[in-house]
């Protein structure tokens, strides 16, 4: 077994276990920390897929920026942990889990039906997924979407400030 396969299998198990724990935990802070673990595992998976730039962005943007925002809001609001683990009773919860298992089985069966038709990854050059190659694509073929993303982030920033601002009804 090559090192890459070993790493990918390890990251797969970590991602699955941490994702389940995100849903299973009662406390929002612990859920958030398991989500960080999940995002880290996905970053390792990106590495095994040759996406070194994506892995770095995953850690910096997702595990760094977004999860810090999440933890900040959780600790700011500090909601009391709920008495129940899930919103519905045990019957509905069990039924939902059962449907989830059926859905996963159908999806995996669909994936496995592809198994015969050339599943091996194609060979790629050493520059695949590097910052340089991604950057070249972003500033040539994907220039307009890239610029639009900048506008989107600006709109989101302004929107977040407007929404979270304290509204002084008595003054207006």
């Amino acid at each position, binding site marked *: 077994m090559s090192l890459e396969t070993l790493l990918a299998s390890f990251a797969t198990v970590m991602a699955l276990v941490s994702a389940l724990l995100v849903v299973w935990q009662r406390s929002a802070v612990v859920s958030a920390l398991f989500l960080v673990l999940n995002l880290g595992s996905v970053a390792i998976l990106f590495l095994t897929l040759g*996406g070194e730039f994506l892995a770095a962005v995953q850690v910096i943007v997702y595990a760094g920026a977004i999860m810090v925002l999440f933890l900040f809001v959780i600790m700011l609001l500090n909601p009391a942990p709920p008495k129940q683990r899930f*919103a519905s009773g045990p019957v509905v919860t069990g039924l*939902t889990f059962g449907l989830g298992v059926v*859905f996963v089985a159908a999806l995996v069966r669909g994936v496995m039906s592809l198994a015969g038709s050339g599943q091996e990854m*194609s060979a790629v050059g050493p520059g695949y997924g590097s910052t340089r190659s991604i950057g070249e694509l972003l500033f040539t073929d994907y220039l307009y979407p890239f610029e639009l993303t900048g506008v989107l982030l600006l709109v989101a920033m302004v929107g977040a*400030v407007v*929404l979270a601002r304290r509204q002084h009804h008595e003054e207006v």
Partner: protein
Amino acid sequence: MPLASYIGLSAVLFVIGVLGVLLKRNALVMFMSIELMLNAVNVALAAFARHHGGLDGQIFVFFVMAVAAAEAAVGLAIFIALFRLRKTTDVTEFNLMRW
């Protein structure tokens, strides 16, 4: 690992995210489950990009991450505004639009 194991993992992660949104009552944890789903899709996109040997899938992952960042900022601001109004993040308590 072959393509099928990545896609299988992506499917399972996505369903775990769906279960989180359906079953949890804390709005913040539901939001984290949405992030789980976005990540599952990212894994599939990166795996297909590697499978075809192109980089367009990875560019798409990059854009999904940017949209996720924007969505997280706006969504969390909405939760802060809701918390000011209702003093809770329990979604079963939010019934402003119910009549």
